């Protein structure tokens, strides 16, 4: 900005003064309109109101001093009006902030992806386990746990798999080395199911019992797309007076609706497990097609999901060895168990069970 020297006044009559002040006022207004940014506003302030070189200073030092005494009053009034005008212009300019042009120069690319602090993912098995456990927690079930290395007694015998029973063949077992010399009961093995925790819980606690048991189990199975020697189960046990088969049905029907949606239907049909009697397999209506039949449910409309049954009196008899209150004539109960991998694979569309245990960042990252 150039600092113009104000014109010299040749005449101090009213008209001349009016014209001269009007010209300055116009100039100030025009200058103020072009202001952009705090620096420009500051420069404007210096140009007009600066104590040494400001134009108003010039007006006062050059016009006022040169004016004849009779014109001083009039000139002074006009001076004050101009000063007020400049000040109001300055106030407006300072309050308006930077101009659009100034802001435009600060533009950024808002389409670049946001900076992300990547968070880790819950493992789909943990996620599914937690979901199942919380459904049963809402029904009054506490969490029970037990060791992964079990004795033959807890894994098999107390679950009513007598030594040499063909039912043991269905659960190929990984065993700890050098057990041959020990009594059958004490032999150590990798638990093949979470069911032993049923007995461990009953030995520790009188009825009523309502527990849900999440855990890792192992079988000596060849690995393929849907089988793994390592997998997870959630077991449930409910023992009390007057627990019935219809309670088992209602409990699992509720749980399946809570896990898979309220429109899911359940269907029970007879099965066989040594530790329950009656035993049942439970199917849910296919969550993919709603029961119409699709590839996922092999056109049947149903998906098999879990095994369950009323606790076999023989199991209570083992519990009675430590807790006489488990008298099968007075109490009753039900138990159920489900494979977590199978449920997780179904829920998340996972085709290879081995992906759960490979620690592949790309696979796990999908669950973040």
């Amino acid at each position, binding site marked *: 900005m150039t600092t113009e020297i104000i014109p010299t006044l040749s005449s101090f009559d009213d008209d001349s003064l009016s014209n001269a002040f009007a010209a300055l006022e116009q100039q100030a207004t025009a200058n103020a309109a072009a202001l952009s940014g705090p620096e420009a506003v500051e420069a404007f302030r210096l140009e007009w109101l600066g104590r040494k070189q400001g134009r108003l200073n010039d007006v006062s030092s050059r016009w006022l001093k040169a004016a004849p005494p009779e014109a001083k009053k009039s000139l002074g009034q006009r001076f004050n009006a101009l000063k007020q005008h400049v000040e109001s212009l300055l106030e407006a300019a300072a309050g308006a902030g930077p101009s659009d042009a100034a802001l435009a120069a600060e533009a950024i690319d808002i389409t670049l992806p946001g900076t992300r602090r990547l968070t*880790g993912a819950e493992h789909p098995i943990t996620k599914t386990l937690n979901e199942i456990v919380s459904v049963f927690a809402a029904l*009054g079930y506490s969490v029970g746990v037990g060791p992964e*290395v079990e004795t033959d007694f807890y894994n098999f015998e107390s679950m009513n798999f007598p030594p040499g029973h063909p039912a043991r063949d269905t659960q190929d077992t990984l065993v700890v080395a050098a057990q041959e010399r020990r009594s059958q009961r004490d032999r150590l093995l990798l638990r093949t199911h979470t069911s032993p925790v049923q007995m461990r819980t009953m030995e520790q606690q009188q009825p009523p019992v309502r527990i849900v048991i999440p855990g*890792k189990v192992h079988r000596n199975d060849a690995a393929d797309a849907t089988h793994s020697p390592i997998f997870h189960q959630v077991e449930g046990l409910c023992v009390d007076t007057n627990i019935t088969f219809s309670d088992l049905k209602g409990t699992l029907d509720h749980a399946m609706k809570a896990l898979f949606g309220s429109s899911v239907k359940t269907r029970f049909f007879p099965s066989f497990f040594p530790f329950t009697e009656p035993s049942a397999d439970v199917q849910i209506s296919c969550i993919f097609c709603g029961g119409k039949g699709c590839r996922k449910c092999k056109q049947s409309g149903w998906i098999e999901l879990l095994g369950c049954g009323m606790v076999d009196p023989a199991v209570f008899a083992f519990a009675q060895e430590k807790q006489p209150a488990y008298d099968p004539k007075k109490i009753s109960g039900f138990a159920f168990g489900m494979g977590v991998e199978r449920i997780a694979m179904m829920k998340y569309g996972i085709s290879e069970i081995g992906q*759960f245990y490979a620690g*592949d960042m790309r696979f796990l990252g999908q669950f973040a």
Partner: protein
Amino acid sequence: MKILTKWLRAFLPQLTVDDAQLAEDLTLRGIAVEGIFDLGPGNGSLYEMDITTNRVDAMNHYGVAREAAAIYGVEFKPLSFALPAARSAEKPYSVRIEAEDACGRFTARVLRDVTIADTRDWFPGAEVDTYFALLEQKKISNAVDATNFAWLAMGQPTHAFDLDKIDGGIVVRRARKGEKLKTLDGMDRILDPEDLVVADHVKALALAGVMGGWDTMITPATKNVLVEAAWFEPMAVRRTARRHGLHTDASHRFERGADFNAAPLASAIVSSILLASGGTPEGDLVDVRVSALECRTAARKPIALALREVHRLLGTTIDKEGITTAIVENVLTALGCALAPAGDAAWNVMLPSWRLDIEREIDLIEEVARVYGYNRFANTLPAFGEGVRELPWAAGEAAVRATLRSAGFHEAIASTFCSAGEAALTAPQPGLVVPLGNPLSEEAGVLRPSLIPGMLAMVGGNLHRDVADVRLFELGTVFSGTTEKVDERPALAFAAAGDLPQQSALHPARAIDFHDIKGAIEQVLACFHIRNVYFDRFPPESGLTPAWLHPYRSARIVADGTTIGWFGQLHPTEAAARKLKDAVLLGELYLDRLFKLPLSKPAARELSRFQPVRRDFSLILDEGIVWEKIDHALTALAIPELVDWRAREVFRDPRRTAHEYSLLLGVTFQAPDRTLREEELQSFHAQVVAAVGKVGARLRS
């Protein structure tokens, strides 16, 4: 197992439902039809069945038909096979059961002058050719096919011997030591003294209940036949079959309990079919029984059943009427039980000989529920029990997981097993590694003593797949002990490689380093109430640092005097052995120790309203002076107004010697109750300079 509906319907003349409905009704009663295949007009369907191991009695056509009769309450035709009149025998054929613990019944029938011929449909009820064609069952000869027909019809194994190859008569006994037998599969077998055999007076003829012998098999030249139908004890057959690595239809059935009373009928089926091509029976059926085993099977004591107990265990039905005495009686009678009333709505129930799986009242209740239909029971909920109790460590576990996830680590689950070599490298107590008796593979030979082997395998898997940024953690069980006693403890492992978990086009990526990992650990530890945490390291020669860690880039974690874990950079030797070119940072925490500590509880304190004063000190230090010394020196000052200090920057000035480094120390002074005066600040400043000076730090001029 395959079942023909055409054959089923021959036993169920009143059955009107179609094959699809029949399949569904059977399946919902536990006789599962897995697949239905239409066999064309007039041939009905083929069912592919999946029947649970406890129901061996239903693994045949007659058994499945009995279930259908019970479901629909329709007529169930008895099996009946008439034999031609027998010629008289001089004396009954000699049969002796020596092994009375293992053979409960042995029937023998002698057939003379038979003709070994091809199979056809012999007579009504013996449509062998038709049924075998539909079942795609291979035909061999009338004798072999007759035994197979009896098996498919009623599930009773039988055997036909060439009578002329038998010396003297039949003895059922244990094998002699070193005795030899060539079985039908052509194998020469050396028998075990525990093996149960059907023998003659000279030699073993067959592995009882498992497989016949080669030398006495039926050939086209066979003229005279001995038909065996017997009952063998499950465990004896199971052991014999297992010892010889055999699993046959016969052993499958006997192991799971055959029908003690089926032998005469099965013998009649085989004999009548074989005699349809000519020949005559000689003498009566020889039938030797062991009463002790008969009492355990066909002649069991009746079981008491009360309707009250049925209701107590089964609960509410959808149908208001529920399970009545009539339903109980009809269902059990149709299944072959005989009910004698024993008071009001109670019975003594005689059990059918083919249902050895039924032994107790509960088994009868299950039968009632099963045939009544599980889905006819209502959905009810039990009354609420007690309050839910959390596991003591549940909150700690959740906090650890959440902290590591927020630090960018994905949770992983690895194998429970590792190799003996990996165990030796990573076990905190290398002498206490537990081997498996039948491991999945050599690489999975022992129970993992540490989560590190699994973690390294997973890190390697990622890096070798060109996934360079890895951040994983695992919460899992580690094992220690002996084959006598195994201890299990919860552990946490984590590993990282590549860049920090930040994705940005604007800020440069930075490789994750030791102190990033340390920060994550500090955050995990901050979840717990710990009075004193420190990190230290031992001289390499002490042998105390885990061998998998870089001896100069690793640390021990100590919380309230207890070693909580170790972490740092993977030892370059281990990295090279695993072909890992990238620097891998990893560690393991003993969660059992951490979980003994209470969770930290946030507590608010008064915030000062007065201005904090921040001062930076630019220090020069000798290489050997670690931050901890500065930290301790400032702690020791115990100036209440010295509220915070931190290492703001550590850098190496190229203009200084290699033995020195620069540290920018940021210090904050603040009083809770007043604005600090200049003189106070000057005094604090001097005290800080003096304190750090005492440990060797010089102010940069």
